[in-house]
């Protein structure tokens, strides 16, 4: 191993491009990623990491393989962003297809042993239902990233923590009216995002 302490040559890394990329559409970000723009790649990553990890976990049910699928998904996005064509459709389904392919590849590499064939039909959802639920989760988790931190916090507590709105207000040390206002504002913003063309 080589080690050296040389004269200073650090170039400061500006944050301005990252802030500018934060408001860009997914399609714009992909175009920039195709041009090897790391700031755009980082924004796209933060926008989709929960959706992609959630999809992988739901399908693979194994954290390590889900993390591998995430790594492969983003490597594939970096590798093939130039093949995305905006005129053929929005970016989110294209990204979903890449993530799904990475997950399926991991799934094929780990086939569960075949058991006895049951006599009765399983009550669990079939492949079509699972696929629909996976895509709904993908869209919703992606849309949550469009909320402000305050709005997202209220939604997550209200829907998935088991707390009442009064308890959410107490937990966050804010008035109940503020919780209600933020919740309604968040639902409205989510509706805008989910109705938008980019998802």
């Amino acid at each position, binding site marked *: 191993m080589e080690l050296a302490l040389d004269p200073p040559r650090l*170039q400061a890394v500006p944050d301005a491009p990252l802030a500018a990329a934060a408001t860009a559409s997914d399609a714009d970000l992909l175009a920039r990623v195709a041009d090897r723009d790391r700031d755009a790649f980082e924004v796209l990553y933060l926008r989709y*990491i929960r959706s992609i990890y959630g999809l992988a976990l739901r399908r693979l049910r194994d954290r390590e393989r889900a*993390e591998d699928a995430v790594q492969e998904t983003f490597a594939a996005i970096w590798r093939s962003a130039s093949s995305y064509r905006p005129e053929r459709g929005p970016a989110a389904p294209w990204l979903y297809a890449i993530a799904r392919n990475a997950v399926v590849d991991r799934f094929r590499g780990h086939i569960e042993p075949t058991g006895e064939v049951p006599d009765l039909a399983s009550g669990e959802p079939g492949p079509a239902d699972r696929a629909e639920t996976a895509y709904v*989760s993908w869209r919703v988790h992606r849309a949550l990233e469009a909320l402000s931190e305050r709005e997202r916090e209220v939604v997550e507590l209200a829907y998935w923590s088991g707390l009442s709105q009064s*308890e959410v207000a107490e937990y966050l040390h804010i008035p109940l009216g503020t919780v209600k206002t933020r919740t309604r504002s968040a639902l*409205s913003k989510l509706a805008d995002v989910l109705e938008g063309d980019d998802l």
Partner: protein
Amino acid sequence: MNPSDFDELAGGDLEPGERERLRSVHDLLVQAGPPPELPPHLAAGPTLGMTLVRPPRRRILTRRVALLAAALTVLAVAFLFGYLAGNGGNGLAHARTLRLTGTRIAPNALASLRVYRSDRAGNWPMKLSGMGLPKLGPNGYYEVFLVRKGGYEPCGAFVVKNAGTPIDVTLNVPYRLKPSDTWVVTRERNGDEERGPVVLRPTT
């Protein structure tokens, strides 16, 4: 609270059209379930390894253009070889950069890690440039680690001679890099068996 109680969540004083719109979002939220909790290394941002993947080449060159390009490549390689030989091998032309920021231990620290293409022997040259790391005591030093699947592989150590003086450290590691790889810098002390705390990590 039961999230199925839409009226308590959204309020009961909505216009019918808006109520229907928010109700559909409400139903989707219930159906989707909570987003997953991210492990720290995924929450930290993309890894440098993800962007070390080379893009596919487009097959747009005609045979004639391809032959011309091949000839030019041979010339360029010959020129580069001569250039590197004439510059002591320091003229590394192609690099990827990972940005690192200070943790609570070194909140003012900032650095970038440049990873160059591997050499003929399979070693990956790297250069860590940074500033804001505090000077440590007589037994203290900093160490760069490659992080892979939660494990730490040492890449090299360095010291900061004067607080406030930027650092520029050259490293050369034999690991075969993978898309999931990332790097951190830790604070260490001679004689300690436990690995020290992380002072620089990939920026989020």
